[in-house]
């Protein structure tokens, strides 16, 4: 008899990756379901103000509204990240109490499309070394993309000057990145079982 390796441990469904074939639709059911639920979380975080955490600076609150976008990109790839970014942007646009600047779709939607792609890029590039580092980098890069592209678009659209944008970005980015990393590590640590020992060392 051949000594074929026997696969003793089957991965749980949520850790498997459904590869598209010629017969499968553009997006798998899991991608659709995760995108829908994360989009609902984005809306709820905005409406209930849970997505805004007070920081000891006079610029307002730190936001974690972009965290579902980064999470979607890490779990299901850049397409889901882009779709969630678009939904985040559309929500910013139609949210009644959004500040007047965000009533411009070039400011509210366009920069948000890039959050997921940037976060996924950072995650995919560093994943082979360490899952933890890849998640941290995805949080750092995703938050940076949100801050830089949104403030950059505000400058391009002549809503604020460069000095104000740099000051605002330098003040808002560090707390937002810290909170995003903590939330991502907490959620993905629990969901993907990162760092969890799966078998006995004996």
């Amino acid at each position: 008899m051949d000594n074929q390796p026997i696969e003793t441990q089957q991965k749980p469904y949520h850790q498997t990756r459904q590869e598209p074939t010629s017969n499968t639709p553009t997006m798998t059911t899991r991608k659709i379901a995760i995108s829908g639920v994360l989009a609902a979380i984005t809306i709820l975080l905005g409406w209930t103000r849970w997505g805004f955490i007070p920081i000891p600076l006079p610029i307002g609150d730190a936001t974690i509204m972009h965290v579902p976008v980064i999470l979607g990109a890490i779990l299901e790839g850049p397409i889901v990240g882009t779709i969630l970014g678009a939904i985040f942007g559309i929500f910013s646009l139609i949210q009644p109490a959004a500040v007047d600047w965000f009533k411009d779709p070039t400011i509210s939607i366009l920069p948000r499309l890039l959050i997921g792609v940037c976060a996924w890029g950072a995650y995919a590039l560093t994943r082979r070394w360490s899952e933890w580092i890849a998640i941290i980098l995805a949080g750092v890069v995703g938050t940076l993309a949100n801050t830089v592209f949104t403030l950059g678009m505000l400058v391009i659209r002549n809503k604020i000057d460069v000095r104000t944008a740099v000051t605002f970005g330098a003040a808002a980015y560090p707390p937002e990145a810290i909170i995003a990393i903590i939330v991502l590590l907490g959620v993905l640590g629990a969901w993907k079982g990162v760092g969890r020992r799966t078998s006995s060392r004996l």
Partner: protein
Amino acid sequence: MSEFDFLSNIAIGQYFPAVSTIHQLDPRFKLMIFLVFTLGISFLDNLTANLLALIWVLTWLAAARCPLIHALRGLRPLLPFVVAFALFQLFFTPTAVGCAALVEWRYLHITTCGLSLMLLSLVRLATLVLLTSLLTMTTTTTELAHGTELLLAPLSNLRLPAHEMALIITIALRFLPTLGLEMSRLARAQAARGVTAQRSHRFYFMRNIRERLPLIIPLFVNSLSRAHRLAVAMDARGYSGTRGRTRAFTMQSSSRDWFAVVVAMFALASAYVLAACLSI
């Protein structure tokens, strides 16, 4: 226990049942009018023209028999942030040529440009709040989802996931109340353990994070679990995208819908013409 009630202030999807022409319009037309009008208002930079647009929207609200107080309800919890932003614009608008200084005291400079920008923002905000409320109060979430799917349908010719996008929006709207209840349950469970959903002072940054994380992380993990179960259920029922799907109800446009488009475009054009006349 209102501190645990997270659903009462959510205006999205809060349909206001009434018998009116606006309620009976095709949701595709309502969505198109909403998008075009929102975009049009966003680029309208004249205060008087924005006031005219606000009057148009108020007229439509009256025609839809929707109470004004109900339409503005979603804004109530966020009012402090709106006021803070208005003050920010008043005090920190960069000075430009042609702006007269009204108040100059140390670092505070209030100019006529800042004042007019603040008023313009408030009027535009009121218009957009009422317009959003008008759409959600006169259209059910199911109608909105079907309308979105049909509007996005041409994008599938460009190999963009139009049907999937519409389905994602439908799932998001469907899960809003479920996740709202989940948030309430989590907040109650954490409150029973001594964690409050109230905000601490902003100087206690780490305490604010520590108090929020036990609520946010379980919300995400439970939601992902729900998404996973939903995907399994969809697979089990043989969901296969758009192929071979038919509809129980089909939407058909009527002359009433086209008349609504003409009225909305006339309203937007009148605001732009007024802005052009005033700038000459």
